[in-house]
């Protein structure tokens, strides 16, 4: 998939530019967004996902411009899966119902079909035994896996994830990343914000590095890890990789 950003700037209520004139073009299968916290990574992801609009600038996916107008955005969101850091499942629905809701109410599947799809996917990712559990009965890792199942059940053309494992301990992080890796091999395009440098390096083909709202560096992830061009990225990697990966 090709993503192009042209002069994307985001200012919330105060004058501070949370995103400052971000421009790049990348062809990617899995794109990782990395950088220090507070830098604007989530904001960028939410603009790409059509959850918020940029103050100025354009975003293109495979050459199609995202029109930041509610009527268009709702269509845009329907073609995209979005997974939040945590708590993204609907509290009042069990795992199966969570997966079914968008299928039935957004994508027009019958209840029976939606249930089949939900059960098949939940089974594939080892969640069959948990399908009747409510979010607060699931472990953090299970919650994130169900959230991913819900996002991919509608066959999105792109899956966006905002630090999907940062609330999890290492073991659960592993099971979520394994699931993402599998989906990537299925041909699903992924953009994720992550602090898992191992995953960014090995499972993502492209990387963008955001510092203080600026795009400091981007390109092949392999190259960025081995030969960072900017001092900022070099020192960031030094800090996060201090204990190896």
């Amino acid at each position, binding site marked *: 998939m090709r993503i192009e950003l042209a002069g994307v700037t985001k200012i919330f209520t105060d004058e501070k530019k949370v995103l400052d004139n971000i421009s790049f073009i990348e062809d990617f299968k899995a794109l990782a967004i990395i950088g220090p916290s507070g830098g604007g990574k989530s904001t960028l992801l939410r603009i790409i996902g059509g959850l918020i609009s940029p103050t100025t600038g354009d975003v293109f996916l495979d050459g199609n411009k995202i029109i930041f107008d509610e009527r268009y955005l*709702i269509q845009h969101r329907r073609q995209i899966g979005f997974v939040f850091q945590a708590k993204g499942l609907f509290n009042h629905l069990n795992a199966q119902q969570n997966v079914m809701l968008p299928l039935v109410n957004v994508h027009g599947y019958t209840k029976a079909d939606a249930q089949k799809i939900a059960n098949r996917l939940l089974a594939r990712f080892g969640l069959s035994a948990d399908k009747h559990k*409510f979010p*607060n009965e699931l472990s953090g890792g299970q919650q994130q896996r169900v959230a991913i199942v*819900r996002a991919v059940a509608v066959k999105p053309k792109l899956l966006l994830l905002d630090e999907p494992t940062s609330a999890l301990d290492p073991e659960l992080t592993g099971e979520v990343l394994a699931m993402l890796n599998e989906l990537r091999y299925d041909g699903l395009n992924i953009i994720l914000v992550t602090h898992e440098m191992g995953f960014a390096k090995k499972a993502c083909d492209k990387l963008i590095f955001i510092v203080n709202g600026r795009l400091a560096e981007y390109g092949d992830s392999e190259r960025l890890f081995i030969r960072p061009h900017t001092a900022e990225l070099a020192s960031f990697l030094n800090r996060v990789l201090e204990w190896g990966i």
Partner: protein
Amino acid sequence: MALYRVFIKGTNDKITLLQKFLNIVIAVALFLLFFFFSAKRLSINFDFSFLWTFRYRLIQGFATTVELSLVSLILSLLLGFLSAMANNSRILAISYFSKVYVQFFRGTPMIMQIYLFFYIVGTAWGVDNRFLAGVLILSLFEGAYIAEIIRGGIDSIEPTQLEAAKAVGLEAGQTLRLVVLPQIIKRTLPALAGQFASIIKDSSLLSLISVIELTQTIREISASNFAIFESYIFLGLLYLSLTFPISMYTRYLEGKFSYEN
């Protein structure tokens, strides 16, 4: 199983049905014995036979209380919902009007509201039907409490729930119908059911303006035959027959929803 285990619950024990039954009987018996001996000390001899004579009036009063409570429940739910919405209004006067309403009716005794509204507001606007006046006052009073319950329900919706609804592509109306309302209902239903029990009990205060509901009926009967103790014991039992099932239902709802939320 040692005998004492029937009466003592270990930290991890499950209470059996038999245990529950036995011990409830004991607790109720203790409670009744206390009253029995209190009455003994005053050498009162209970005689409930007169109740049969007044059965039609009692049934009528009971029916009026149920009616009063049901109509007030519906009206106060409506008022409470509107008030909770108004509280979040971006038009400040409306928002403050709702806050003043809730503060006033929760912060003053109902007896004062009854007199004030019946004799001043009611008279000024020609509401002389006592039942209607009673329903209105009771609904205003309970509506203020229900407003707070519903507001709490609205506040308890986490922002991530709305963001998730947006992300999966729901429209605003669908988000309200499929995500927000079900969550508010699940969170507030136990408290609302409990509030219904309060409405039933609070309706007794309308006897102050001579709405002939259950309490007023009993007041009239006991004033004519001086069987005050028997009358009020029976009154208590009748109210319990209404509130106890509701209280059980509230418990059930709390248990049911505690893990689903």
